[in-house]
């Protein structure tokens, strides 16, 4: 099995799905030459009818794929940065998310909205936001957040084969830096199944994407002082595998949630509410969130790195719970 980067794993998934199903096509800005390498080589293989570079027009991308899906295609749209989705919010939230319901359940709208979030590449405040909680609030959207290259490939293939709109969020730092074994065979990963990245008994850490890597670092540090953390990766936040998270918390009695998004009304808030509801009697300490402290992401690299959670902060939070 080859060791590949996150970018390469995503590229493999697109290649395989386009070869498998001629209804699958890609549409987005600058996708022919692929700024981050995800769509690299696809234009050469599948041509201009299946790899469609667009005007800078996010609402058009978001809305046009609904029409294209309604007449039989399976579009994979790309928003280069997640912040650009704000230009398309009406089409995503008012149209894509609600169309199945508005059609009385009869619509088949196999749309994937791929986008890229996260801090760490000095893209500054207006190109760096993790907005998964906004979309999680809206019924009718599935939200996928892969952490490993293996999962990225399997989950992207599942997303493309799903008959409903899926928002597929990629972490832009992980593209080049996160590597892992990825088989060249066809496989999918079902939505709504969390992965236990590290087993432990003393505290549960639920962390998304790059923050899961941070959580694993923190877990190693904690192990050195005798604290065994269980690290969980939800992989999809809608649908959410709450059972795995609750089961872990009932075992460890403590939970820390780590994400890059702002703490206030972030997805961690929903997780805390669910955990308190379903594991209240098992908790030995209040659930804690480690997240962006409600500031815009700084442009300056040093300041940017300070605005997102670090392993040291996760260690600190866990130690606070263990007192």
């Amino acid at each position, binding site marked *: 099995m080859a060791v590949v980067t996150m970018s390469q794993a995503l590229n493999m998934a697109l290649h395989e799905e386009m070869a498998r199903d001629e209804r699958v*096509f890609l549409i987005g800005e600058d996708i022919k030459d692929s700024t981050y390498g995800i769509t690299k080589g696809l234009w050469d293989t599948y041509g201009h*009818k*299946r790899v*469609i570079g*667009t*005007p800078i*027009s996010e*609402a*058009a991308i*978001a*809305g*046009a*794929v*609904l*029409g*294209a*899906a*309604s*007449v*039989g*295609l399976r579009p994979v749209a790309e928003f280069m940065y997640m912040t650009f989705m704000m230009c398309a919010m*009406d*089409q995503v939230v*008012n*149209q894509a998310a609600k*169309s*199945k*319901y*508005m*059609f*009385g*359940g*009869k*619509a088949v709208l196999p749309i994937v909205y791929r986008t890229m979030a996260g801090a760490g590449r000095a893209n500054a405040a207006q190109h760096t936001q993790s907005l998964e909680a906004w979309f999680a609030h809206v*019924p*009718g959207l599935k939200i996928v957040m892969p952490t490993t290259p293996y999962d990225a490939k399997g989950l992207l293939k599942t997303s493309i084969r799903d*008959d*409903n709109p899926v928002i597929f969020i990629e972490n832009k730092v992980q593209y080049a830096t996160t590597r892992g074994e990825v088989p060249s065979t066809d496989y999918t990963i079902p939505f*709504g199944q969390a992965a236990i990245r590290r087993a432990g008994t003393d505290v549960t850490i639920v962390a998304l994407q790059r923050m899961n890597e941070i959580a694993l670092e923190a877990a190693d540090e904690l192990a050195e002082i005798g604290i065994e953390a269980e690290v969980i990766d939800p992989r999809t936040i*809608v*649908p*959410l595998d*709450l*059972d795995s998270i609750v089961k872990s918390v009932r075992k460890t009695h403590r939970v820390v949630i780590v994400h890059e998004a702002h703490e206030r009304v972030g997805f961690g808030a929903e997780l805390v509410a669910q955990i308190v509801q379903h594991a209240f009697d098992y908790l030995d300490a209040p659930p804690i969130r480690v997240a962006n402290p409600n500031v815009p992401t700084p442009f300056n690299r040093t300041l940017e790195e300070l605005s997102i959670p670090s392993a040291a902060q996760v260690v600190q939070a866990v130690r606070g719970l263990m007192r």
Partner: protein
Amino acid sequence: MPLPHGPDPVPEKFAACSVRLGADPEPFRVLDPDGHVVGPLPELDDATLLALYRWMAFGRALDGRALAIQRQGRLTVWAPATGQEAALAGMGLAMESGDWVFTAYREPLLLLMRGLALEDLLQYFRGLYWVANPYDTGAWPIQIVIADQTLHAVGAGLGFRLQGQPHVAVASVGDGATSQGDFYEAINFGGVFGAQALIYIQNNGWAISTPRARQSASQTLAQKALAFGLPGLLVDGNDPLAVYQVARHALDRARAGEGPIIVEALTYRLGAHTTADDPTRYQPPDEIAAWRGRDPIIRFRRFLERRGLWDAGREAVLQAEVLVEIDGAIARAEARPTPSFDRVIESTWAIPPPRLRAYQAARHAIDREETP
């Protein structure tokens, strides 16, 4: 001077109604307000002409009945299209099987002509979801967000092109929609990709209480096509034979892969925006009177009468017939039960997530307690 939209100029017949720089377009017209022939007649047989008139009369009668039953609380809302029947029926007649239409809320007549059952449409206006199967009718559910459907139509038109299918997607919008960003992103996209789409603007003079002059300083709305490299045609929207011919041309052109045309039909809303407002508070009385004199149904009826195809007796029979048809559909719609709340959940989720299943179970428990 060559037309600014390049090597494919509109046919001579439509030259005068085509927007171009430095010239005022004249709306394409076949019938004058009194039904006299003043332009080229389309090749339509008598049966088709009568069917066209029937649809227009049906639309007018439907508005009357729908408004009445809405006042009785039997419909949630209704957006009458009184005065716009020619603009709707001319387009409906021009479209072909396999074409799709993406409308706002004032186009029931166009949707019915595409094969939507009236009782299914009335279910929607009773506040329920869209009961018709869109894949059977080629009709996307009514769009309430202004201009959003322009993008869906352009996307469908791109989809037809990518799949090599000989169909056209029609976006039907009002004058107000041309002020939205989605409208411009749509026509730009449509032009770049040669989408098999038609952008149809029914300029009825008013967007709720906002007059046309407040939407844009453009002399016409069709001329917006020029900036996007598309042809734009102006048509008398109260003349069904003119609308039919312009629509036919635009559909043929799009079907042939030559890209979208923007068609602006000049018409007037002889009624309220919806059952929620009172147009006499903002529409000037002399303006209403002037447009009543251009009533599309009277115009077309006089044309048919002069050709010996219509008379008072036939009119009376038709009026009675359409009311029976409409009342039958209303009765069938009202006989359908309100679905359970489960249907709402199941319409959104093919397989409801665990949390929703728990919610359903809890609700059912309450229902059981309340049932004596």
